[in-house]
């Protein structure tokens, strides 16, 4: 690894943002890594929890910054495409919550699984899709993550069980995925994500009971962004301590705007589950900048000042940037270079997402059942009625040379 010291220490130019967490940092002479102190966690039915003193190395610092910026940029691009009517329907942006996904991904190991709700673009990216695949899915094109058949809320990757449109539906699924892991003796966890609104769906309580009863390696993670659509948490939840709401399932409250706290919390939680002590329930305190979806300006139930204030004082990217630059781990110029790269990557993705083709209409019929007889498909006139030519999306893709 490059020596941080040899790069010269350059304080962040005109950085006005102070991370919400304690910014104390110590450079470790032996490794060039830097020690940071993160805000303490709140514990529920646990004697000890994740550490508040965490170490960050240079490679990770650059990597985390890049990933958070990609998500931020990609979501801005999606917002713009929506305004241009190139994305239709429902589109929920993750901006403001980047530290949650990137931090958790950083602690995941091979074989860990994720399932979440509709706010899934960032996760899809982190689990392996390209920005092109995500933006093209949003515009419904062949280059999309599921060839345009899913849209904003339905994206998938290896070990990423999707994007789910029905609030609360993914919660028991996560328990099921974790059961399969346990059954196969995998040392893995299933990260089961949901919002503060979804925390009030009864399915969560059914799922936590099963998970505890059978000791499943599932980590229920409530991304508390303060609102379920237009409803602030206090108006919807009798207890807003979401990390305690699993009752007999131990829980941890985490500052979800601090990627380092998130990473450490997940690392600790994985260790806990690997030791056969799962499940766990985490709450990530975070914030959503945009409206709930693109049809919500997001300003009727909160003030613009409130949003601005979070952007100024708790932004996960600015906060992180400030810390890694101030501590001398990376330089401002290196981050600028990343910004440039990311901008380019997203611009190129937008190009493909707006010019690629749409899957032929035959795909409408593909992949409904695994093994039924082909159906009659009516043409524009009675004589043009044909037998369904393709049964799977794969066959459709092959027929047009896209697979």
């Amino acid at each position, binding site marked *: 690894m490059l020596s941080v010291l040899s790069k010269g220490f350059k304080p962040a130019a005109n950085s006005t943002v102070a991370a919400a967490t304690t910014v104390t940092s110590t450079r470790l002479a032996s490794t060039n890594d830097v020690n940071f102190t993160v805000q303490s966690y709140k514990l529920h039915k646990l004697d000890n929890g994740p550490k508040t003193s965490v170490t960050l190395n240079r490679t990770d610092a650059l990597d985390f910054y890049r990933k958070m910026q990609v998500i931020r940029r990609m979501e801005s691009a999606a917002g713009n495409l929506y305004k241009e*009517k190139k994305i*239709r*329907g*429902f589109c929920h942006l993750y901006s403001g919550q980047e530290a949650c996904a990137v931090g958790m991904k950083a602690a995941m190991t091979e074989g860990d699984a994720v399932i979440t709700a509709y706010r899934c673009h960032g996760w899809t990216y982190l689990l392996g899709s390209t920005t092109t695949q995500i933006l093209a899915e949003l515009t*419904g094109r*062949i280059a999309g993550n599921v060839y*345009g*058949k*899913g*849209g904003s*809320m*339905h994206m998938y990757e290896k070990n990423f069980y999707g994007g789910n*449109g*029905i*609030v*609360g539906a993914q919660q028991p699924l996560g328990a099921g995925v974790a059961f399969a892991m346990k059954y196969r003796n995998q040392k893995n966890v299933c990260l089961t994500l949901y919002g503060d*609104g*979804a925390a*009030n*769906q*009864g*399915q969560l309580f059914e799922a936590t009971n099963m998970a505890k009863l059978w000791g499943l390696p599932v980590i229920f993670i409530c991304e508390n962004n303060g609102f*379920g*659509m*237009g*409803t602030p948490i206090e*108006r*919807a*939840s009798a207890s807003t301590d979401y990390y305690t709401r699993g009752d007999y399932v131990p829980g941890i409250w985490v500052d979800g705007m601090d990627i380092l706290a998130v990473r450490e919390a997940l690392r600790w939680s994985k260790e806990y589950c690997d030791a056969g002590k799962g499940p766990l329930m985490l709450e990530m305190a975070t914030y959503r900048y945009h409206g709930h979806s693109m*049809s*919500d300006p997001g300003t*009727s*139930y909160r003030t613009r000042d409130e949003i601005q204030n979070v952007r100024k004082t708790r932004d996960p990217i600015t906060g992180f940037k400030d810390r890694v630059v101030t501590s001398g781990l990376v330089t401002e110029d290196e981050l600028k270079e990343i910004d440039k790269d990311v901008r380019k990557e997203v611009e190129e993705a937008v190009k493909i997402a707006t010019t690629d*083709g*749409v*899957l*032929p*209409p*035959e*795909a*409408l*019929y593909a992949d*409904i059942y695994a093994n039924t007889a082909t*159906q009659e*498909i*009516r*043409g*524009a*006139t*009675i004589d*043009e009625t*044909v037998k369904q*030519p393709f049964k799977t999306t794969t066959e459709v893709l092959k027929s*047009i040379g896209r697979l």
Partner: protein
Amino acid sequence: MAAFRPFSSLLVGGNTRQLLAKRGAAHFNFQPSDAPKEYGDVRQKMNLCQAVNNAMDIAMDTDPSAVLFGEDVAFGGVFRCSIGLKDKYGADRVFNTPLCEQGIAGFGIGLAVAGSTAIAEIQFGDYIFPAYDQLVNEAAKYRYRSGGLFECGKLTVRATWGAVGHGALYHSQCPEANFTHTPGVKVVIPRGPTQAKGLLLSCIRDDNPTIFFEPKILYRLAAEEVPVGDFMIPLSKAETVRKGKDVTIVSWGTQVHVCLEAAQLAQEKLGVSAEVIDLQTIQPWDEDHVVESVKRTGRLIVSHEAPKTSGFGAEIAATIQDRCFLHLESPVNRSCGWDTPFPHVYEPFYLPTVWRVFDSIKKTVKY
């Protein structure tokens, strides 16, 4: 015309894209209706959203036990149907619930059985399924299983319904048939503002639990002169919205407008006179009205947005062949959504558009 191209020639090139690019536009033209005199002379232009608001306003004004609740309804709900009602009737009568459809439905049943008029909003018909158990197993059977001692007839569940042009899998479905298979609940769907107001008031005041599906594409798009007073359109009564003699078309909700257009087209292009009936109440439905019409025309087409298989069209077809067998000149035709999940980019192909209904008319009369 792009819509006339055969399916198989709509490969990935320009045609698909052109057609898909148009998916912002509605697939029909709204045909306003003129309410009968007895509903009142004083009228005001309202869209369907305002008509629903107006109906709830009247319901709450005339019934102090009426309460309205659901996700974000105190702010007006995501479609703004309940806007202003909290200010008018207070936060104890118009309130937000947490995000929990099963809870909303069950809570509503409890309220209703204890004597309150409960108006529950489920934000999208697609989200009524978490509440399905409560509606099917509790609401529908309360009266029966208690020998008539207990019932929740004061419950009305409102839910938005149907295609909007870009809603994809979970913001477009038409789940009426899921509920018509359950004796004990009524299912009602309006085609425009006047019907929305009159039918919703009937649902709220009916002594049975009712599910009122609101075609959300009509909220803003459909506007007409609506009587401002308190009036009710009777449940389980169909309405003939276009007179004809060669073929009967039965439909409900948004699809009525598609059928009206197809009927007009059939008149112009084929010289066929099609009668169009708006069923209005899907269950219990106005059999006699449809039977009378089919006996005259000898032909029936049923058209709904929901998938064909096990759609309510199947029930109508079965009843009509039973009651009109000797009058039928051709098999009952169903012009419906395809048997696929509601697709993301293929909505224009999924929907039983004017052209598909037109094709059904042609097939039926030429049989």
